[in-house]
């Protein structure tokens, strides 16, 4: 208990942390207007994670998708799509590469994570170096939107989705770190 409390004290003030969460296949973010880091693992490689975001009003925020920066994970490059109303419709070529059909009337932002030069980011909360798609800001409409994460190469690996910047650590926000420690540390 003392160790946990000490770690929380170190985490909160120092480092622009995102509220942590661990993803299941379909994960709902309770309040997408505060910052989150959602951790997930592609066990078999062919899964699709759907992160559901329900905004109370139109909302602009930064996103990024990160993976571990280590030799064994260098070729793990999951793709990310943000799907929702107000985004441009997917071209036939893009739609063919998405893991799920885009709902009627929705559009898509997609990053297939194919950049030759990959951005590397030192994540100060858990003190890890990560590959990142790079931060990108996007304005989303009110109501339901989704983020899809999958690996076109269908290989397994761990990923982290960061979104938002407003910190809110009330209500035991860091308990998820300790119950899923293996996904937060490497």
């Amino acid at each position, binding site marked *: 208990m003392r160790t946990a409390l000490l770690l929380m004290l170190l985490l909160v003030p120092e480092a622009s942390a995102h509220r942590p969460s661990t993803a299941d296949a379909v994960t709902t973010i309770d309040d997408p207007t505060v910052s989150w880091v959602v951790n997930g693992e592609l066990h078999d490689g062919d899964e699709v994670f759907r992160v559901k975001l329900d905004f109370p009003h139109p909302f602009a925020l930064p996103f990024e998708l990160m993976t571990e920066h280590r030799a064994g994970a260098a070729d793990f490059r999951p793709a990310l799509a943000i799907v929702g109303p107000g985004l441009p419709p997917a071209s036939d070529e893009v739609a063919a590469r998405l893991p799920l059909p885009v709902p009627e009337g929705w559009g898509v932002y997609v990053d297939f994570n194919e950049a030759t030069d990959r951005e590397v980011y030192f994540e100060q909360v858990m003190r890890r170096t990560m590959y990142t798609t790079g931060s990108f800001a996007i*304005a989303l409409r009110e109501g339901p939107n989704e983020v899809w994460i999958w690996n076109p190469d269908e290989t397994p690996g761990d990923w982290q989705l960061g979104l938002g910047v407003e910190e809110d650590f009330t209500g*035991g926000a860091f308990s998820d770190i300790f119950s899923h420690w293996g996904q937060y540390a490497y």
Partner: protein
Amino acid sequence: MRRGPRISGLSATLALLVGACGAPIEPTPDCDAFVACTTARDVQQGITTDMVRFQPGGACWGNPEIAGLCDRGCRSGMAWLRDAFTDLPRECAP
């Protein structure tokens, strides 16, 4: 959940101390451009997008690390808008 308020209080106190030691961070030109473009698109579409975090005093400008994240995000976001939409208002031009 008594821990939450206690941690928030500590965080706020330390943030105040840290903030007192450093100069305030101003929004970057790329985030100013992203806000201006999104605001102009909002007028076209009859909506109001919450962009408080990118504006002066917003959460993006609390420390250099998060400011860098927002700045890169605004730059990438603007580049994507210009690629993805052909009907952008003039406020979105480079």
